[in-house]
């Protein structure tokens, strides 16, 4: 007998919140000095001061929650990102659901870049989103 979390609940709950809470999924390039704390960093107001100097929040297009039946997990995905005229230094990014109020905009995840620390200099900053999405919850 296997222990599993049934995946549809994640999709149902997130889809409901994304539809009804009037939130905008956004990505924040974070400063190299930022060390995430999953227990205490809850809302954008907790970490906004640690966004990379010179960076701004980037809206994620087509953010979606999808069940990957083959891998038995629910995945959080969006389109690739490409922002022109960016100047900052960063080694990780956070994704938030922006309500317009930092103290109610929940943080979903913080993820390192494979390339380590990068610095666009008045150039295009692009993130190629992993083929499976940003993050996922497994069923067990």
């Amino acid at each position, binding site marked *: 007998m296997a*222990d599993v979390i049934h995946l549809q609940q994640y999709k149902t709950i997130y889809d409901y919140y994304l539809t009804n809470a009037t939130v905008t999924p956004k990505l924040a390039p974070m400063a190299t000095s930022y060390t995430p704390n999953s227990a205490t960093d809850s809302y954008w107001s907790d970490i906004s001061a640690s966004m990379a100097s010179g960076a701004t929040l980037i809206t994620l297009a087509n953010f979606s929650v999808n069940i990957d039946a083959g891998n038995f997990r629910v995945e959080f995905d969006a389109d690739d990102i490409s922002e022109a005229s960016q100047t900052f230094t960063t080694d990780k990014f956070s994704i938030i659901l922006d309500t317009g109020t930092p103290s109610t905009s929940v943080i979903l995840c913080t993820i390192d870049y494979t390339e380590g620390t*990068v*610095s*666009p200099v008045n150039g295009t900053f*692009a993130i190629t989103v992993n083929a499976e999405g940003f993050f996922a919850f497994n069923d067990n």
Partner: protein
Amino acid sequence: MATAFGTISSVATTTFNVTGDIDVSKPASLTEGDLMVAVLQIGTANDGVYSATGWSEVDNELGSVSSVTVLAKVATSGDVAASDFTFTPSGTQVGSSDEMSGFIIRFTGNSFTGAENVKASFFQDNAATTTKTFSNGIVPFSTGSVFVLVACNAQSNVGAQSGYAITNNDPTWTERIDYNSSAGSFGVATATPSAVSDTGDSTVVYTASEASTGILMAVQEDTNQTVTHSLLTQSPTFTKPVLSVGTTTTHSLLTQSPTINNPSAKGSAPTQWSNPDKPSTDWLNPDKL
């Protein structure tokens, strides 16, 4: 083409009461599109930010010994044709005898925008010592950028300068300026970063025990960045309930006897019955008619 140090001008010096501004010569071999970074100081306590037409400010540090401004500009054809550039300090504390000095570094690369191409951090070490330690760590743009370490004093001759270093991943430094006079001193060295991580403190060694303002800069041409990331997966933790094995027991039949509240009987005795004689033989009982 990666960003590279090009040339550096000689140090210009003057006092504020001469013209109220300072002319710094054009760095040699200036070419249209090059990035020029000017470092200017004035011996005004906590005042005196420089500006110049067409130049954008990277940052400034207003100190008790030196007030320093860093400006940047992408060279135009007009700049290439010029012989020098004029910078003007402003501030209510700027006085007639204040010493001014400055220089310009030229960088080459593929494409520059201006101040965005320069990352600078300042620190004042006002102690009268020879080993100057500046808490001005930065993270360079990349290993393709250029470090510039500047130590300056606008009021004193600090003697010969040497010992340029950063705490972490110290690269090989090349001294570009070792200027020391009573009109102001500059020590300037450049290097190629060997790591894209925090430099930690920087240090410069003076011959004389003097105060100093240290500037650590990283310069890089316009650069695009494309990054990737791995999928972050999270597995649930199942906290299973602990099953308690019970003890099998017997129990007796629970019986409950009713309590009956009997009604109390209440009745009256019938009246005494009598059987009188008929009044006559033809008497009829009227109750039976």
